[in-house]
């Protein structure tokens, strides 16, 4: 209030007391000139319209705008006077003059009288079509499938006629490319041509939808939206492990996982009851965000960037709405407030950025078998030892309380010593290593303590959901190596008088035999660098380290080590302790996954004599405090599992189990989300700046979309289910529109990423709604949607175009002809591989290093040296989908044909036509090898005569046989090359692979 008072005081010189503010004379002209542009007939930003009486008083999404008699409670006045904490109006223009503001104030003070009949006679803002849930429209009275009826009705209105059906060969090639991304073989074409049955075409549609390559082709469609890539992005752009997610998408599409479930699992698979590995892997969708680990970053800043990216991906990819504008301010065109943006954000803001170990089905079977055998051995022990419970209890009594008291040391990290890694202090006294990961550093931590008589120091290595596979280390396996552990002590009164603490003994709960470092940790030196028992951490040798890599699963357990001082440490009057944790067993390249650092660690101290590392895992130690009768079976099993290792006569059995662990498969890792236990607070961020949190917001959804179920818990799973609610006005429309775009080149709504108010009107609004409703009512089945489209006469039309029609409808929005355009980047390459016979059709697995010039992955082309071991075996000719994708160094042959690089969600690719594309298909290694292979294949399989061979090669590329004129051209090329003693067949094959028709869906 006082602030308003000040403003009013400032206005006084301009105020003309006692004058009446007349709406028509004074206020309306002012609103018209300054406000109607955004709050009038054309636009209603914030849902507010000020040119119509009913709507002006009704207010916008933020509530009432005019409170008659009380200007200070009227946002209209507050916003133009600049007295609220919201942006001043008019937005982006000069504030109104003080006398104008005073007029508005007075008008409201005097009761805000707005005579009837003045202004626009509009009582409600018509909701934008896309914000009203689709309803099944009436079918037009036309012949044909529902799709065709809508299209024909529109053509009628436009005075156009549809094109005849394309010839069968063209049709099968079109269909094969659309459904599988691969061209038909000549055999498939012949079989279709020979099939005169009335449902021959439908059988082809069914055959192709059932092909495992269908999942590959349409996975790429989804991976664009999921901004899939195999690296972190930003400067380091390290390789990451997400191909399990890619394969999950392929399999999900192949088994026609309903789209609503497909989305729920990707947004919140981890929260589903008894979530399977697949459902956890699906959350890789959100985790596909980039990660900046360049030196000197604030991890929280880039966590927020990743959150914005996830919101953008959900906006474009699922909702079909541009929501990212509202990151910084209320959406200018759609009724989305900034607060609502952060309310949706709050649903996502409560997850750990985790990685999980994941296993192929075969590996899963192996695991199940191993665990069964382990259980068998343990059951055998129990069976043969009927009094095992008593014996275990006796052991527990003896063990419980046998540990000394440890005092957590909470030192400060010396920033200069971290090598750029961030040591984030956690509440439990531990540090979590995040951000840039140097491969060699020696962190220094200091602490002032009043404790004296310190006999030993303990270092705990702890798990954390933010570490690879949960840690406790930071290597890609979640392991670490401690090169050296050193402590210095100095009297607090004389900090420079440091003496090194001499350690006489070190113990740990894991002591592995000496092992040479894995190749990823090699540092190009000729030293023999090894890991081994804990003694290696106090041997003064930089080449030896304490290692914890006990093999799959076991390597990801928390660990501890205790270091005993020769004589008690601590000065009366305080001691400065300096700890050095030397971590120098990483590789040479910190721009790759070569760190071997501790991930989360905690230091403590004791005054007890002869302290040693507790052999009990921390969780088992904790269970001992639970009375035996109250333990869960899992807790009892955990205690037993440890206890049995201490029973001397069971040594062989425990060895056998250890042997089984050595057979455990390594698995892969996958970026996943895991929900945090404690809810993270979400704040509206002023201008989207994470350093400027404003008011706290609760999870929620925008008012202009459908509502959340009232009783549902406010978590990510509820949000996921809300996204695919039958009442969602945009989710199904957005998806069917993008599928349509893939078939026809342009969506029914051209801006596939935005169905909001700024989107151009749909070309066929009823068709869009019909498809959306049909899709949802068909159980969100994508395959049924594909079949609807593929079976339509609209889709089956010839794509030949006359000059008149081209003039009339250059982009084929009216659909008086079939689609004809260049195929996507991946298909350009896959067609060459398929035609030449080089294609390796294997599905799934780690991404492959297709041929590429080496220099691209080395400085100065790349920021850091990247690994690109060009595949020489069968992986050389995998489908383009499997090519390893570094975000900062996109694979050139795909980039040239407009493949997105995964930096942001992409739901509409550009389709360019450039000389670099010509150079690629003419000269790039794989295309050259494909030309050679196609030439050899033509000679080998194509028949006896040049003409036959030519026809065969031609059909391999474009499905149809060549015309006489085309044959003559190519035979001429062959002959001229022969005359020059040049390789004519390869030249012919190269021309064929470069034909416009070869890389075009016709």
């Amino acid at each position, binding site marked *: 209030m006082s602030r308003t008072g000040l403003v009013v005081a400032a206005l006084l010189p301009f105020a003309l007391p006692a004058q009446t503010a007349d709406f028509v004379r004074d206020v309306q002209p002012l609103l018209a000139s300054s406000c109607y542009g955004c709050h009038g007939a054309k636009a209603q930003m914030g849902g507010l319209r000020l040119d119509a009486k009913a709507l002006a008083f009704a207010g916008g999404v933020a509530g009432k705008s005019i409170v008659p008699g009380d200007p200070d409670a009227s946002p209209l006045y507050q916003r133009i006077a600049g007295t609220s904490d919201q942006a001043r109006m008019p937005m982006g223009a000069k504030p109104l003059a003080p006398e104008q503001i005073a007029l508005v104030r007075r008008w409201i003070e005097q009761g805000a009288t707005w005579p009837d009949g003045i202004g626009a006679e509009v009582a409600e803002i018509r909701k934008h079509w896309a914000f009203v849930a689709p309803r099944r429209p009436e079918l037009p009275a036309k012949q044909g499938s529902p799709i065709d009826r809508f299209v024909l009705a529109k053509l009628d209105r436009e005075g156009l006629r549809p094109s005849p059906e394309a010839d069968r060969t063209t049709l099968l090639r079109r269909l094969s490319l659309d459904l599988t991304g691969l061209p038909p073989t000549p055999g498939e074409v012949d079989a279709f041509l020979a099939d005169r049955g009335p449902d021959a075409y439908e059988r082809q549609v069914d055959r192709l939808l059932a092909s495992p390559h269908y999942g590959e082709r349409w996975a790429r469609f989804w991976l664009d939206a999921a901004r899939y890539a195999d690296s972190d992005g930003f400067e380091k752009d390290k390789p990451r492990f997400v191909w399990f997610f890619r394969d999950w998408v392929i399999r999900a599409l192949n088994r026609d996982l309903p789209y609503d479930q497909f989305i729920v699992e990707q947004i919140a698979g981890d929260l589903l009851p008894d979530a399977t590995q697949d459902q956890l892997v699906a959350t890789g969708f959100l985790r596909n965000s980039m990660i900046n680990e360049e030196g000197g970053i604030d991890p929280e800043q880039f966590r927020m960037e990743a959150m914005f990216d996830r919101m953008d991906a959900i906006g474009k990819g699922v909702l079909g709405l541009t929501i990212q504008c509202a990151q910084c301010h209320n959406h200018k065109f759609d009724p989305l407030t900034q607060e609502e943006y952060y309310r949706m954000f709050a649903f996502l803001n409560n997850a750990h950025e985790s990685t999980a170990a994941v296993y192929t089905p075969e590996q899963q079977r192996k695991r199940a078998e191993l665990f069964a055998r382990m259980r068998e051995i343990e059951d055998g022990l129990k069976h043969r030892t009927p009094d095992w419970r008593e014996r275990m209890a006796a052991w527990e009594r003896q063990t419980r309380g046998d540990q000394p008291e440890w005092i957590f040391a909470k030192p400060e990290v010396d*920033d200069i010593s971290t090598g750029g890694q961030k040591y984030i202090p956690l509440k439990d006294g531990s540090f979590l290593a995040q951000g840039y990961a140097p491969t060699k550093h020696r962190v220094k931590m200091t602490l002032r303590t009043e404790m004296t008589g310190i006999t030993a120091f303990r270092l705990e290595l702890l798990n954390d959901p933010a570490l690879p596979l949960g840690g406790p280390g930071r290597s890609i396996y979640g392991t670490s190596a401690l090169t050296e552990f050193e402590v210095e002590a100095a009297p607090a009164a004389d900090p420079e008088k440091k003496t090194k603490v001499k350690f006489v003994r070190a113990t740990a709960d894991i002591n592995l035999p000496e092992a040479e470092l894995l190749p990823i940790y090699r540092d190009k030196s000729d030293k023999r660098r090894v890991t081994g028992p804990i003694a290696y951490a106090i041997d003064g040798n930089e080449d030896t380290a304490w290692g914890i890599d006990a093999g799959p699963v076991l390597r990801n357990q928390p660990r501890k080590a205790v270091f005993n001082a020769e004589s008690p440490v601590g000065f009366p009057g305080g001691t400065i302790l300096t700890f050095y944790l030397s971590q120098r067993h990483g590789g040479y390249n910190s721009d790759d996954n070569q760190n071997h650092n501790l991930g989360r660690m905690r230091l403590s101290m004791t005054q007890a004599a002869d302290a040693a590392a507790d052999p009990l895992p921390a969780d088992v130690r904790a269970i001992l405090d639970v009375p035996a009768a109250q333990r869960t079976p899992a807790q009892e099993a955990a205690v037993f599992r440890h206890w049995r290792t201490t029973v001397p006569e069971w040594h062989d059995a425990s060895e056998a189990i250890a042997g089984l662990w050595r057979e455990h498969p390594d698995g892969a890792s996958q970026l996943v989300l895991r929900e945090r236990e404690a809810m993270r607070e979400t704040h509206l961020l002023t201008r989207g700046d994470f350093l400027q949190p404003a008011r706290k917001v609760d999870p929620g959804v925008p008012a202009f979309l459908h509502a959340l179920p009232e009783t549902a818990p406010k978590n990510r799973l509820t949000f996921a289910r809300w996204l695919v609610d039958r009442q969602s006005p945009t989710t199904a429309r957005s998806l069917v529109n993008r599928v349509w775009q893939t078939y026809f080149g342009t969506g029914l709504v051209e801006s596939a990423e935005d169905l909001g108010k700024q989107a151009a009107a749909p070309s066929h609004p009823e068709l869009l709604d019909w498809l959306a409703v049909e899709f949802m009512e068909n159980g969100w089945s994508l395959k049924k949607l594909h079949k609807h489209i593929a079976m339509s006469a609209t889709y089956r039309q010839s794509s030949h175009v006359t000059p008149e029609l081209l003039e009339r409808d250059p982009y084929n929005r009216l659909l008086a002809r079939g689609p004809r355009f260049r195929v996507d980047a991946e298909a350009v390459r896959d067609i060459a591989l398929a035609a030449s016979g080089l294609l390796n059709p294997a599905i799934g697995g780690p991404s492959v290093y297709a041929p590429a010039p080496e220099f691209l992955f080395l400085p100065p082309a790349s920021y850091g040296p990247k690994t690109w071991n060009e595949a020489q075996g069968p992986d050389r000719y995998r489908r383009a989908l499997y090519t390893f994708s570094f975000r900062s160094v996109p694979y050139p042959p795909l980039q040239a044909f407009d493949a997105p690089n995964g930096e942001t969600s992409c739901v509409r690719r550009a389709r360019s*036509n450039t000389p670099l594309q010509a150079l690629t298909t003419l000269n790039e290694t794989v295309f050259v090898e494909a030309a050679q292979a196609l030439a050899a294949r033509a000679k080998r399989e194509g028949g006896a005569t040049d003409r036959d061979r030519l026809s065969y090669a031609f059909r391999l590329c474009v499905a149809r046989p060549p015309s006489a004129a085309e044959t003559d051209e190519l035979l001429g090329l062959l002959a001229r090359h022969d005359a*020059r003693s040049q390789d004519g067949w390869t030249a012919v094959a190269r021309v064929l692979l470069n034909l416009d028709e070869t890389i075009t869906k016709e």
Partner: protein
Amino acid sequence: MPDARIERTRRWFFEQCGVGLGAIALGHLLGGTARAADPLAPKQPHFAPKARNVIFLFMAGAPSHLELFDHKPQLAKFDGTLPPADLLKGYRAAFINPNSKLLGPRFQFARYGRNGATISELLPHLAQIVDDIAIVKSLSTDAFNHAPGQLLMNTGSQQFGRPSMGAWVTYGLGSESRDLPAFVVFSSGKKGPSGGSSCWGSGFLPTVYQGVQFRGSGDPVLYLSNPPGVDETSQRDSLDTLRRLNEMRQGIVGDPEIATRINSFEMAFRMQTSAPELMDISKESPETLEMYGAKPGASSYANNCLLARRLVERGVRFVQLYHEAWDQHGNLVKDLKQNCADTDRASAALVRDLKQRGLLDDTLVVWGGEFGRTPMVQGGGDDGRDHHPNAFTMWFAGGGTKPGLLLGETDELGFNVTSDKIHVHDLHATILHLLGFDHTKLTYRFQGRDFRLTDVHGHVATKMLA
């Protein structure tokens, strides 16, 4: 389509294709459909431009303004003391605790030129041309990590997905080169840029506008050379056959896109000749080579500077040279000496050479990195500086900038800008202005919104203009 545009397109097709397109095909092409229009056809900007070309010498890693241009005797005086506490309020540093000791300039400065510009002893060649360049000491940015900083400098946003300046310019102006890409990028130094290929990406603009990476050795453009066994005769023969087959198909299906494809192959063929010719600097005079310090066959920043001139001569609009070497957290003295030895001569030679050939008037040369460096020391040994976004120096030459200009001041520690602050957005607005664009009107609609290089920011720095 406006008539003038059709006419340009028509002319372009006749001139560029030079191939016997069938009458039907041509009818399609020129039938007034936007689809047939060449996205790279030359276009006029909003008003008469001062600059027609840009050569951006991007000193990636962020050079120290305090050792090169922004001489701070007071910083020397306070060497070894802590900075004033109020200076650090709200300040975030990448690596160091901001409350680290100040580090005096590690090199000597002297005054040069009519305006008495202070230039470091490390830049003897630049010192000789200070009357031809505009030195601006008052740049500032929002980012203090490399990748976001480089993205901001190149795309106006710290986030990925936005078009680069070169892409915007190409989108706005089209291309004057018939057989070279409109936007060419080189990379030299120890590493590639931190922002990766997004630094020259097209973002949401059509991909034809993205920068094309050239390389100093080997194929200058990827996949430029014919495969082994294909000589020029075979290549021409094959392309002619290909063209005739494509024309036949176009006669049947009527799709004008086929004509564009035919044209793409013809331009690729011309590029196979023109790119190697461009790269062959052996015919440059010994004096020119000496001036740059360029060596035929080598791959270096100096060669790239000379190639930038040759590209501009051939109608390439936007050339960007990345030299990633300037991230001196440590080894400040040794590495700065080396970096300047690698770049000073060639950068100055480029300006001289453009001037003597009459190209400087309409070619804007920009030199600078993504941010500056801290007045505070990083590490022991008084030999490093951390990232600093508040103030840094860039220089400009030609293209309508004011020769001999010294613009902007920082405080006595070189920490904050005290006058004529030019934010990265202002720099973008200014560069677009020089190219004849109102930066608020060069827009592209994406996701229901008109985007621009300067987003909602940017003021033309009129003091920089000649």
